[in-house]
């Protein structure tokens, strides 16, 4: 197990390096950062000189090596737009994104899982059908539209909830949290629902589909035949066996929630990393883009590692596998 983890961690460094490499080879197609960094009256010579000073005329390999070398020493460079070290910016924005993502993931699980189980067990009831249909409506609209509609109804018309930002935050060391103030919690409601909606549908449908499969297996039939309580069969025997694919997807979704937060954050002006990133794309702030991508890669690698380890815990048959393969 330990060598397994060590190996995966080693691989993860490779993954992050590759992500950075690909990112750098593509950055020059994203646009020209210079025009956003100077005023309209700045002369062409000064613009050219600035580009030279920033090292943007170097080949991407040189730029990449420089980035990787600095990153290895924990230096992610200097944002063009904010004129601050990127690591400071990310540390400042990380809590907002993580709080939003985790609350959303929790919402998605807390609602999606029971709904999935219910729609599987009572799969022909009208309630199950309406769950299935309603959940689809929610994902048939682009996130930005759902967000705007929520803002329009609950923010502008009813004035129940704040329309943007995080509200008041409390500083706990370097971590800023909105979970401890009333306005922070209120601000979290609309963005987290917007972000969770999609994952919720996915989890619900996946749980239902897996559950239906499992309920038909001899294994469960046998459990029933043994006279175990229906509730026990459904929630312990069956649910446990649906967990492998559910864990896969949910785990992966946690990562993509963080990535998908980009749109939600920009609709709600949520001051997280996604907003930082999308504005960096708009301004071609290459150091932020690079650091963000590497960080997201890191999250994914860690999440994947945890998912794979959970596999082993949930399904003991895989234990043999992780050691050798074929």
């Amino acid at each position, binding site marked *: 197990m330990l060598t397994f983890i060590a190996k995966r961690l080693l691989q993860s460094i490779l993954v992050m390096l590759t992500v950075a490499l690909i990112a750098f080879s593509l950055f020059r197609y*994203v*646009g*020209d*950062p*210079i*025009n*956003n*960094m*100077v*005023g*309209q*009256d*700045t*002369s*062409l010579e*000064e*613009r*050219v000189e*600035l*580009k030279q*000073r*920033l090292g943007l005329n170097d080949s991407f390999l040189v730029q990449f090596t420089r980035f990787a070398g600095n990153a290895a020493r924990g*230096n992610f460079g*200097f944002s*063009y*737009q*904010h*004129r*601050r*070290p990127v690591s*400071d*910016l990310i540390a*400042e924005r990380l809590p907002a994104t993580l709080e939003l993502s985790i609350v959303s993931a929790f919402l998605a699980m807390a609602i999606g899982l029971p709904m999935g189980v219910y729609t599987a067990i009572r799969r022909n009831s009208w309630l199950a059908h309406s769950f299935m249909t309603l959940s689809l409506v929610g994902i048939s609209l682009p996130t930005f539209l759902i967000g*705007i509609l929520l*803002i*329009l109804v609950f*923010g*502008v018309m009813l*004035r129940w909830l*704040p*329309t*943007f*930002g995080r509200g*008041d935050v*409390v500083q706990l060391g370097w971590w800023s949290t909105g979970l*401890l*103030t*009333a306005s922070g919690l209120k601000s979290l409601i609309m963005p987290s629902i917007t972000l969770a909606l999609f994952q919720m549908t996915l989890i619900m449908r996946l749980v239902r589909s897996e559950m239906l499969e499992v309920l038909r297996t001899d294994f469960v039939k046998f459990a029933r035949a043994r006279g175990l309580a229906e509730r026990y069969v459904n929630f312990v025997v069956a649910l446990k066996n649906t967990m492998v694919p559910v864990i896969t997807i949910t785990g992966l979704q946690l990562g993509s929630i963080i990535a998908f937060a980009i749109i939600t954050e*920009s*609709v*709600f*002006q949520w*001051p997280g990393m996604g*907003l*930082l990133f999308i*504005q960096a794309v*708009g*301004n*071609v702030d290459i150091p932020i883009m690079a650091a963000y991508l590497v960080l997201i890669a890191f999250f994914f690698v860690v999440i994947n590692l945890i998912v794979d380890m959970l596999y082993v815990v949930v399904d003991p048959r895989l234990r043999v596998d992780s050691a050798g393969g074929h």
Partner: protein
Amino acid sequence: MIGKTLKALLVGTTVLAGASAAQAETFRWAFQGDAQTLDPHGLFETFTLGFQGNIYEGLVKRDDTMTMVGALAESWENIEPTVWRFKLRPGVKFHNGNDFTAEDVVFSVNRLNTEGSDMKVISTLIKEAKVVDDLTVDIITPAPNPILPNQFEIFYIMDKQWAEENNTTEATNVKGGDEGNYSNLNANGTGPFIVKSRQTGVKTVLTRNPDYWDKDMRSNVTEAIFTPIAQDATRVAALLSGNVDLAYPVPVQDWGRLESAEGVKPLTGPEARTIFLGFDQLRDELTASNIKGKNPFKDVRVRKAFFQAINIDAIKEKVMRGASTPAGLMAAPQINGYTEAMNDRLPYDEEAAKKLMAEAGYADGFEVTMDCPNDRYVNDEKICQAAAAMLARINVKVDLLAQTKSKYFGKVLAQNGYDTSFFLLGWTPSTFDSHNVISSLIACRGGEDNVGSFNLGGYCNPKINELTLKIQSETDQTKRQAMIDEVFQIHKDEVGHIPLHQQPLSWGVSDKVEVVQRPDNQFDLRYAVVKK
């Protein structure tokens, strides 16, 4: 345990809120982006400088009627053709309590010239700054410059001692060091507001400077909270829901909504920015067209046909919701050198346009790609779309390439070799003078005289370059105006560009506050009043 902490924190915040509510007049506003730096010499950009203007001050400033008045200088005079003498205001203190003196002015002039400075346009106006006494400074210019004080509005003064103590004697460099420049996140000006906290791109909180020298300042604001909100809809929603008191820009199509909504209203006015179309008239073959071996835009009849195919009134009514001012000149009415009599346009006439196209040998039209930004000007992409549809009627097939501003400018500007055949651009001359319009947009580019750097289409008439030089040095206003008129007339006759309109300023304001909207789209907290 956690419950206790929570309770303590909640109590803490309520007490604070209660205390501040009694005396505070809080003003909250939102713009589409953030001030990119607090360093007054770091970036020559309208919003950034305008925002800093609440914290820092220059020797002079514009008041609510755009009149130049003294700020840190009480008076100034041109004692010699190349020497301006500024008498400084006595008793002014920086936020940290340091006295404001002539040394600070000289220091700031020198700081303009450091590597990171984006204010070199200002520093080229100055040859040297000399301390005469504690409250007198001489500015020596390289050549006689009768309008120097006018150009000093956005040249802000920084405290020398503070800068030295905090190792920020050089302007914030985009390239940066490991830590960044102190003045990028911290400020110490003489202005009416002090930076209390700042999180870049998220929120900046300002508090009133109790020792501000101008005791007659109109504003009663004690705390001002600024939030950048990038998305139009989110920004408008923030205003409608009462979460901010001022939001700008707001989309022109939302004016109706703001008018009918309770407690808010749109605040509008003409902006000095002219939006226009341009075509590549320099290359022998267009880079993005199906016509090979020749360039249809070299033919003035084609350019004229394009002009006459554009129904500017339809764009005004439908795209701009009646809020634009159709333009015949490349300079707006607010710009020095503008002549009302010359602001007429070639009439919209589809038949005449078709005839011109046929005469030029393009009765069946041609294809051309149009470059257009989609997040830079008011409804920019929609204007391009409407223009494409209008041109389709004279058989020109426009492939619209609408991109975000970084991609758009990265493609069409000088650094990329002016890679465009047909484009939409907007321009506000930073000096508010026609000379800037002519030398940036109309004069032939690529010559020794370093003009025409934003003449993306390469329109060229050497006569104009001659006139540009003369306009620059001419001090007789009548002669100068005649030359400006001559340039504009040549440019009109040759259809060098197609001016479209001046776009409107578009703000949304809560009824709870009163603000002054400046024609350069600046917001000054000095004139913001929270109603009781």
